[in-house]
């Protein structure tokens, strides 16, 4: 909806880039705040509040319109997304069986692409030729699935028993567990046993943990630094979607059919969807293979991205290929943090790198659009450079042998040790 909204609000590309970036800034701040919120509020309640806020913010823009309202709305929606995303992944992480956890967690991010495809379809049906008079109908159509999901989430989404037990709300936990299992298995005797073994032990060691705790392991300093540079560099590629919008906008001919543009956009999101499922399957291959697969992927990105330099018509192909590898790049971070930290620390580490990624995308969106206005290929050259740096960072990340030397993995059975870490 970039072009219709830009035209509707009568703003130039520079202001558009600022508003676009504000979303990522909001997400970064939201990620940061999400950890603290879980100490006081249950995660399902946080998700419900975020959805309600999104409805209100969308309604505000639907009613009042205007650049200021839109900027505030996008920033706050970013904040809600930033808070909501870790909650959703945390809840699903607690519910799914261990052996399928990694695959499902990565694969379901493909629903982001499905949401984007929905937006494209609505755009094609309602404003096929950027009719400003019908733009508000689009806003409404983006709003109604939000309301439906809010109702379903409000009625059916429960907090996970694991989280409740960790937060000393064992009676509520067993209330949720009861319909799922044989009532005899959660007898009073078992409840007493769990109380004695779990709740009366020092649970504060689990609940009181913050972002700084992931830096408390001196032997991981270099790994964290490499991962940070890697995350920062590869996240710049997220900005390519917006650059694609601009490129299509600039190269659009009045005689072009909207369907051809639709196909180009669809290809990008379809590639992302395939990438999510593919990245899920790579969890079955060992750690080192995945590392080098990602390195090769990033290398390919940096080569294939040169295509737009040859022909501007093929920009969408290169961006689709980037999106094919993006989920794999992301899952590499999850894999490594799962290897080097225990579960609760790895969740915080993932959150930290998620914040880095959003801040990086914020900067990319902010600088690339004005840059693309002067030279459309300049952002691509920068992305090539950053992709090469990311590839180098992966090569220098610790191998299995390094992890064994550091005492993180055992040489006798690294696979089982790895599974232990992934829990």
């Amino acid at each position, binding site marked *: *909806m*970039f*072009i*219709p909204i830009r035209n509707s609000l009568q703003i130039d590309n520079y202001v558009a880039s600022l508003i*676009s970036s504000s*979303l990522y800034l909001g997400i970064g701040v939201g990620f940061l705040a999400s950890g603290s919120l879980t100490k006081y509020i249950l995660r399902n309640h946080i998700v419900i509040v975020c*959805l309600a806020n999104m409805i209100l913010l*969308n309604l505000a823009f639907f009613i009042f319109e205007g650049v200021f309202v839109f900027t505030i709305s996008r920033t706050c*929606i970013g904040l809600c*997304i930033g808070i*909501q995303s870790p909650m*959703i992944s945390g809840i*699903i992480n*607690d*519910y*799914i069986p*261990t052996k399928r956890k990694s695959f499902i967690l990565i694969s*379901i991010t493909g*629903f*982001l692409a499905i*949401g*984007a495809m*929905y*937006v494209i379809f609505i755009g*094609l049906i309602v404003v096929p030729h950027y009719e400003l008079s019908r733009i508000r109908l689009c806003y409404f159509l*983006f709003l109604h*699935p*939000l309301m439906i*999901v809010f109702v379903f*989430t409000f009625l059916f*989404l*429960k907090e996970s028993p694991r989280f409740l037990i960790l937060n000393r709300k064992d009676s509520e936990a067993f209330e949720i*567990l009861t319909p*799922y299992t044989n009532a005899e*298995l*959660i007898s009073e005797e078992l409840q007493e046993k*769990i109380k004695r*073994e779990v709740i009366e032990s*020092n*649970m504060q*060691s*689990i609940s009181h943990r913050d972002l700084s705790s992931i830096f408390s392991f001196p*032997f991981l300093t270099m790994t964290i630094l490499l991962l940070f540079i890697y995350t920062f560099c590869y996240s710049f590629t997220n900005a390519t*979607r917006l650059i694609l919008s601009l490129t*299509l906008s600039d190269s659009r001919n009045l005689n072009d059919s*909207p369907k051809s*543009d*639709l196909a*180009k*956009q669809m290809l990008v999101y379809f590639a992302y969807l395939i990438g999510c499922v593919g990245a899920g399957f790579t969890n079955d291959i060992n750690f080192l293979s995945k590392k080098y697969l990602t390195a090769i992927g990033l290398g390919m990105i940096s080569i294939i991205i040169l295509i737009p330099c040859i022909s501007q018509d093929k920009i969408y192909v290169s961006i689709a290929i980037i999106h094919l590898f993006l989920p794999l790049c992301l899952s590499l971070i999850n894999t490594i943090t799962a290897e080097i930290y*225990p*579960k609760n620390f790895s969740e915080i580490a993932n959150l930290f790198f998620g914040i880095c990624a959003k801040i990086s995308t914020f900067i990319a969106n902010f600088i690339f659009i004005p840059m693309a206005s002067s030279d459309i290929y300049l952002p691509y050259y920068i992305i090539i450079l950053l992709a090469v740096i990311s590839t180098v960072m992966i090569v220098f990340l610790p191998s299995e042998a390094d992890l064994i030397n*550091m*005492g993180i993995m*055992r040489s006798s059975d690294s696979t*089982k*040790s790895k599974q*232990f*870490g992934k*829990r």
Partner: protein
Amino acid sequence: MFNEANEGEPSETKNRKQNLPFYSSVEEEIDISGGIEDFDNDEIPIRNTNAILIKNELIIEQIINNYGYGRNNLKVLILCCMNIFIIGIQYTYYINYY
């Protein structure tokens, strides 16, 4: 946090232990290779905060796996997917061409 090397150990071992992360310090006393079902939780020594942390994680994991709410998760999975779908709409509708 990890400076709990025993007295009387060879200095090499002691130094190694001082530098080891939590996994190793626990693995030396708990054999986790056979899975969490293979040991009695009462026998897990609590040497430091990380050992407590891992012990509690394992017990909770045991509860979840043994009493299997993980097998009845379709509703939660669908709800989470719906939420991600919504994030997809809100996340991208401004930056999409259409």
